[in-house]
């Protein structure tokens, strides 16, 4: 099967990056900019910025069944169809084509294409702080993060300055400010809620979300047109994705080779050098197998896929999976929970409305367990994300009685103000939450199926109750009526923040990566996607993945330059 037409020399690069999503795009760009001939491998098809956004300019009436998924789609893609709709379906995999095993319900949301899920991400960008980096050590949970905020702070700035993040500085120690473009604006009800929180709760505040949507032109992109159709791909380049930003920048250096339709099946180990020598790849168009070689390797396949690639790469040196002396690979899987919150209706301020569709909501930064001794029945915390709006037909459909002329009038007139808000909560790293490879079942390329065994535990469940209560209190405090607490009880994975399966740590016996995301057991391998996370904090994680990636690239560059790799 090995294609002997390609000589080893032709298949050799300075660097290989596996995966072209939000962190892989960054790795490719940084390495190319440092002068490395870089091969970027992507298992899915190519998606070119703007050209391959077929639904981006469609009107609601251009969709045959509105935004309803068909029965056929729901049957073929029971997981992805919870996330996609006909306007975004093409950026998600087919579950039927890409099966996995759920030991417990777990939504593994995937986008196999160039750009990965950076095309459809939520765009929220929050820095982690020492409250997060010190948490495991203080609590005696899992292992200590091998870095602190000061290690990452300049890299956060570096990434923010490149991708463009709009936001408001708030001067909070636990949610550090970043390099922000002008903030988007809160609407009337959100300001009202914010004022009330400021008055009633001394340690809480409400601020506009910090998002990778451009409030002014940036790096030849944007500004955001306030269409709120980001997940279709933006023809204005109004938000950051690998496709709109890092990959074109990598291409511009002349050092990038992008190879879509390439599933990496194995990391190849060089016994003599005790490092990785390259990767084995299946070309999904020809089914041919190739090998590619490089001095350094960045694995950015996304948390679950990265861990499964390591576990599938066995050799006499690594019988339990590549770089897995610690036996932590695949374990400590985390995902934020975002099921619990509250909703309320306000019967005042009916003179006010808004124009345009702001592509984000508000944020109430974490306010629980900021200090020791708060006596709560759970550890860590959550932030609240939500949005205020006036009821429009989508809500009035459920809330309006009757039919006929008066009904139509009410249906087409702005209704009461409402606020929906929910807690994005930290999930502790549990060894039992894990992915493994099935010993028998294989996919159509002969690769073992991934088996996911994940559940939230007592700490997360107790936190959810607290989220409901504090959310409802804040709404009631601001004069909302009919405040309803909710808990959707969504499965793990549904926040699409899976992380932790190849964690960073000080000690090679208990962690997979060191403080530069370098593999303890194979020094030329770097992992900078979600799998590197030692704890989950409650911040949306993509910004941290990008910062870790840029930092690791610089480290790898220095190591190579100094002859250490």
């Amino acid at each position: 099967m090995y294609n002997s037409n390609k000589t080893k020399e032709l298949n050799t690069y300075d660097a290989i990056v596996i995966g072209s999503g939000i962190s892989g795009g960054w790795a490719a760009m940084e390495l190319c900019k440092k002068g490395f001939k870089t091969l970027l491998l992507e298992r899915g098809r190519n998606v070119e910025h703007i050209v391959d956004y077929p639904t981006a300019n469609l009107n609601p009436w251009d969709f045959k069944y509105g935004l309803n998924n068909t029965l056929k789609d729901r049957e073929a893609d029971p997981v992805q169809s919870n996330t996609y709709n006909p306007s975004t379906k093409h950026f998600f995999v087919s579950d039927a084509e890409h099966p996995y095993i759920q030991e417990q319900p777990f939504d593994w949301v995937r986008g196999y294409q160039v750009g990965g899920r950076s095309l459809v991400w939520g765009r929220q960008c929050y820095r982690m702080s020492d409250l997060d980096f010190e948490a495991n050590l203080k609590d005696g949970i899992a292992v200590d993060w091998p870095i602190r905020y000061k290690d990452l702070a300049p890299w956060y700035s570096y990434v923010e300055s490149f991708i463009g993040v709009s936001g408001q500085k708030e001067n909070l120690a636990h949610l550090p400010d970043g390099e922000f473009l002008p903030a988007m604006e809160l609407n009337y009800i959100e300001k009202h809620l914010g004022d009330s929180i400021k008055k009633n709760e001394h340690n809480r505040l409400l601020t506009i979300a910090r998002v990778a949507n451009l409030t002014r032109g940036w790096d030849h992109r944007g500004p955001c047109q306030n269409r709120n159709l980001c997940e279709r791909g933006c023809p204005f380049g109004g938000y950051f994705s690998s496709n709109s930003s890092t990959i074109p920048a990598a291409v511009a250096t002349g050092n990038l080779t992008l190879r879509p339709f390439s599933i990496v099946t194995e990391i190849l180990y060089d016994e003599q050098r005790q490092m990785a020598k390259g990767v084995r790849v299946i070309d999904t168009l020809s089914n041919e197998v190739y090998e590619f070689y490089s001095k350094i390797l960045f694995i950015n396949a996304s948390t679950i896929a990265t861990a499964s690639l390591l576990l599938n790469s066995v050799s006499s040196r690594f019988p339990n999976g590549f770089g897995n002396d610690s036996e932590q690979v695949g374990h400590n899987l985390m995902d934020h929970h975002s099921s619990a919150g509250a909703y309320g209706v306000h019967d005042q301020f009916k003179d006010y409305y808004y124009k345009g569709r702001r592509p984000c909501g508000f944020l109430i930064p974490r306010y629980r367990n900021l200090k020791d001794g708060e006596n709560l029945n759970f550890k860590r915390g959550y932030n609240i994300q939500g949005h205020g709006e006036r009821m429009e037909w989508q809500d009035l459909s459920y809330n309006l009685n009757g039919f006929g002329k008066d009904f139509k009038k009410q249906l087409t007139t702005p209704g009461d103000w409402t606020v929906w808000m929910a807690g994005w909560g930290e999930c502790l790293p549990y060894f039992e939450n894990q992915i493994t490879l099935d010993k028998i079942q294989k996919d159509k390329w002969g690769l073992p199926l991934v088996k996911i065994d994940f559940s939230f535990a007592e700490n997360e469940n107790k936190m959810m109750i607290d989220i409901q209560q504090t959310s409802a209190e804040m709404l009631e405090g601001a004069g909302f009526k009919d405040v309803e607490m909710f808990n959707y009880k969504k499965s793990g994975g549904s926040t699409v923040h899976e992380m932790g399966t190849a964690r960073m740590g000080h000690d090679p016996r208990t962690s997979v990566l060191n403080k530069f995301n370098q593999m303890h057991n194979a020094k030329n391998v770097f992992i900078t996607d979600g799998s590197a996370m030692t704890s989950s904090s409650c911040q949306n994680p993509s910004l941290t993945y990008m910062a870790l990636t840029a930092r690791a690239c610089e480290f790898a560059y220095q190591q190579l330059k100094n002859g250490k790799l």
Partner: protein
Amino acid sequence: MNRRSYFKRILVLGALGGASFSIFKWKELTRQVDPVLLWSKKDLVAELSEIIIPETDTPGAKSANVADYIIKVLINCMDIKKQNKFCSGLELVESHSMRNYGKSFLNCSDQEKQTVFEYIANHSGFSYRILNRINKKIFGESFFITLKDLTIEGYCMSKPGATQGLAYDYIPGNFEACIKLKPNQKSWATK
């Protein structure tokens, strides 16, 4: 309408009446609904949707071709149970008009149609109350709720509904966070 087309229409209605019997005899909710038979009820669905969203100074459900949307979505996207409940609902409309007025719904006067419709609405099992989208799952089961939801969705997402019934802002450009509501201002068609 000339005489000939009038008679033609009566004949068609007669044929539809026959067809409707074969849809509606299905009591089991898991039986596959025949799309052809459901499509044959398009005029009835259109009439019902127009009662929910009538033509006023802006287009109504019929002008927005909402019946087409309802049937397409129902057949392709809604589970079989919901499809069957919808069919039994149409049967109820027909049998209720027949019982009370001795004619099919489409032949009823506007007042009679209104009365039949009110009966259906009042017997849809439960009434609305202020609730949010979270509880969507509880709703959407009964015929009336399905009809109403799909009528609203089909209308508000149609070109006439979105651009004339509501306010459609294709590319807003900027975001104005707090503006004074103008008299008779319509709400936005999209979020």
